[in-house]
């Protein structure tokens, strides 16, 4: 799966904490809330983005993001900095979504305003919102794997571990999700024909 090869977001995710962020982490570990707020401001976009894609609902993403940062605050003494902070936070966010995952009601499409507020994507690369809706409409398991592996570039091993499923199940979910999205694209193309 080469969906994210060359994706700048992947590079950002894997970058180890820089000096300033390292300082914030060290201070936050001692109970410094201001330092933790700096970390939050710096990373909330990455965490909320993942939560929004995993849940498909802005209200659920709000809750999951809050829980993720509270969990991160509690777990901070155990963070050694060997893994990338972004990956560490994403893992906590996935757990938060799963823990919080009583979102069994039908989910709605990702809010257009949230996408419009995304700061890091140049406007010429603005994705069609119908793909967002197609992803949000996938069943939980397929969507979770597609988001983690297909969008954020995690391995099937990582996704399987975080989601508590077998690696083979992760691959099956991704295959199924991609087939659904391809069908969606084909249908959209036919609808666009005169």
């Amino acid at each position, binding site marked *: 799966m080469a969906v994210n090869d060359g994706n700048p977001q992947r590079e950002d995710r894997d970058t180890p904490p820089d000096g300033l962020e390292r300082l914030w982490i060290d201070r936050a570990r001692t109970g410094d*809330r201001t330092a933790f707020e700096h970390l939050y401001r710096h990373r909330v976009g990455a965490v909320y*983005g993942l939560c*929004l894609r995993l849940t498909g609902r802005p209200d659920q993403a709000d809750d999951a993001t809050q829980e993720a940062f509270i969990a991160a605050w509690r777990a901070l*003494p155990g963070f050694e900095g060997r893994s990338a902070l972004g990956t560490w936070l994403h893992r906590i966010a996935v757990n938060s979504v799963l823990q919080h995952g009583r979102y069994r009601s039908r989910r709605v499409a990702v809010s257009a305003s949230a996408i419009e507020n995304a*700061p*890091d994507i140049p406007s010429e690369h603005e994705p069609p919102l119908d793909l967002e809706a197609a992803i949000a409409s996938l069943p939980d398991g397929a969507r979770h794997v597609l988001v983690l592996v297909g969008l954020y570039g995690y391995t099937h091993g990582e996704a399987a571990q975080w989601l508590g499923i077998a690696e083979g199940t992760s691959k099956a979910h991704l295959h199924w999700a991609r087939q659904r999205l391809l069908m969606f*694209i084909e249908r959209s193309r036919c609808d666009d024909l005169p």
Partner: protein
Amino acid sequence: MTFRDNERRLEEGLAALPRRIHPNRNLWSDIAPRLERPSVPRVEVPRVALGMAAGLLLGLAVFLAAPRWHPEPLTSVHSSRDASLIRTRAALLEAYRERLPQMDALTRTRVQRDLAVVRAAEKDLGDALQNSPNSEVLLSLYAGALHQEFNLYDTVLTTTEINSSRNST
């Protein structure tokens, strides 16, 4: 349009989706009030001992707050609390000695030096109280010194607990 074209469109569409999305409202205002100090796993025995120590210090504080209602001299206060205090301090000291070697040499030296200062203060205050057993000031200082001693043990136990939990992850 072929299947490969659709696959390419899918790849491009997924690659173009924003990974970072900022929430529409300020979540920090809901997060901040829920942040307590980072939780640190503790060892059961020292926690119990520290609880006992806190109880003993509270008893001493009550005594200090109401000296006229309990006019007995320090020696009698000690005699009624000595056994418990000695047991508590012994438990803490044992845990402290067990954990101290886990600290780096510089920190260890600093801790030992601080403990020596606190112990010397306790001894001086204890001697002074032999002469003025009902002095509120001396009793207050003595309680403060004991508190510092227990806090020092707590610091060592807490710090080494953090390190050992980090190493185990």
